[in-house]
């Protein structure tokens, strides 16, 4: 992954920072994302059939009909939400262990994208739930409720990151919070599961669906496209954090020079400044 994201900053002189967040990898991934999106739209909206099958009464049809097309976004977004936030927790853990800024930036980038994808997951889920479950929100479903808590947890993580602080202190606090999220989520999942002890959609959506070849293909395509998209903006976000750090450290160089100049000024007027400070002590 370090090949994609760029070498750790320690390995290169400061001037070697990229001038922008693009790289050959992002250009390839970007084109792949665009092409994939066009393909996904064609498959999801035109080629794949709506979900419908014969109902119990003769002549009737049941199923999710056109709402099933939301799955091609919802399901991949959910998978990559969990991957992104898992990556954030993992990078946070490695940061605590190995202490490299590289891991801190990776955690930050993946958390931001993870929260974004989590919002997409929740929104598409609610839009899908309205026609299918006849409600925007279903408290009885473990995944829905757990995902909301997950969203709130990592929104808190981003809130913590947004507070101005010394970079190392912020990295350390954020890393602990990132790991804390990974500690929390299994407990939330288990407790919500016991709480209602029934799940509406984990089996229902996939097993009841009449999985045709094209439906399955579209679903897999959605996951792949979303994955490429995730990787694409992850690299951009990571390199942006890198640039931000470069700007910060360039600022530090300037601040250091300024600070030393301050000492020079005083030295120039040396004895005078010293003398006023010590006026009281002069015998």
């Amino acid at each position, binding site marked *: 992954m370090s090949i994609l994201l760029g070498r750790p900053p320690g390995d290169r002189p400061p001037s070697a920072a990229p001038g922008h967040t693009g790289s050959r990898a992002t250009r390839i991934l970007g084109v792949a994302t665009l092409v994939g999106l066009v393909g996904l739209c064609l498959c999801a909206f035109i080629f794949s059939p709506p979900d419908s099958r014969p109902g119990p009464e003769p002549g009737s049809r049941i199923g999710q009909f056109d709402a099933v097309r939301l799955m091609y976004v919802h399901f991949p977004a959910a998978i990559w939400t969990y991957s992104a936030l898992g990556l954030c927790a993992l990078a946070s853990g490695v940061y605590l262990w190995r202490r490299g800024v590289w891991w801190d930036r990776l955690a930050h980038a993946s958390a931001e994208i993870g929260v974004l994808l989590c919002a997409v997951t929740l929104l598409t889920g609610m839009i899908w739930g309205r026609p299918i479950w006849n409600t925007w929100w279903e408290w009885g479903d473990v995944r829905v409720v757990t995902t909301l808590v997950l969203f709130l947890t990592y929104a808190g993580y981003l809130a913590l990151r947004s*507070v101005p602080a010394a970079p190392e202190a912020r990295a*350390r606090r954020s890393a602990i919070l990132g790991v804390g999220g990974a500690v929390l989520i299994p*407990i939330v999942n288990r407790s919500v599961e016991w709480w209602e002890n029934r799940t509406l959609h984990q089996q229902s959506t996939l097993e009841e669906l009449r999985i045709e070849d094209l439906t399955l293909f579209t679903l897999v395509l959605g996951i792949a496209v979303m994955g490429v998209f995730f990787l694409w903006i992850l690299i951009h976000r990571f390199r942006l954090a890198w640039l931000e750090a470069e700007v910060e450290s360039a600022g530090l160089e300037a601040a250091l020079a300024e600070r030393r100049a301050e000492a020079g000024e005083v030295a120039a007027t040396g004895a005078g400044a010293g003398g006023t400070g010590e006026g009281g002590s002069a015998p």
Partner: protein
Amino acid sequence: MREVLLVAAKDLRIELRSRVLLFQVAPFAVATLVLLGFALDADRSALRNFSPGLFWVAVLLTALLAAQRSVAVEHAGRAADALLLSATSPARIFAGKALALAAQLAVLEALLGVAMVVLYDARVEHFGLAVASAAAATVGIAAAGTLYGVLAAPMGVRETLLPVLLLPVFAPVLIGATRAFGDALGTAAVNGWAWFGLLGLFALVYAVFGALAYGPLLEAEA
């Protein structure tokens, strides 16, 4: 262990002297219960049915204040630095502060419990279950509150940041404690002791996580 008790005793002694818990946090807790009563239109049967959940919502909101107070004590006058400069391991400081916070929460819960019985007409059917699950929940809340309190502490935005970070963490406690109390108060037909197990697990996980993470957090503050 000696150091754990020293830190805990110190926190409790500060509380006894400043009386913040008694004069500020406790009235807040009771006022919360009263407002929740208004929210449910003071319907006696509804209040009794929902009393476990309302009780724990009040406890968790109160715990936010108590956790803030626990951190503020160390940050006024930078006493946290003095703790860092002592040879005490951060895990012991964490344990001591969590213990003191748990003791304070236990007192508040006792008060809220009485208020719940009086105001909501709740009846405790299984006293043992109620006490055991409250104890497990309290340890979990205290451990999480101590950890996340110091996480949000050194910033100028502690008052607003801590609730954002801590309330999602409290979600499983609220679910578990409400269910366990539902059984203990006879308002829900569930197995309360299973929920007690979940609360115990939460307490264990956060006690261990907190003890491990407290050191790096104190370092980050320095």
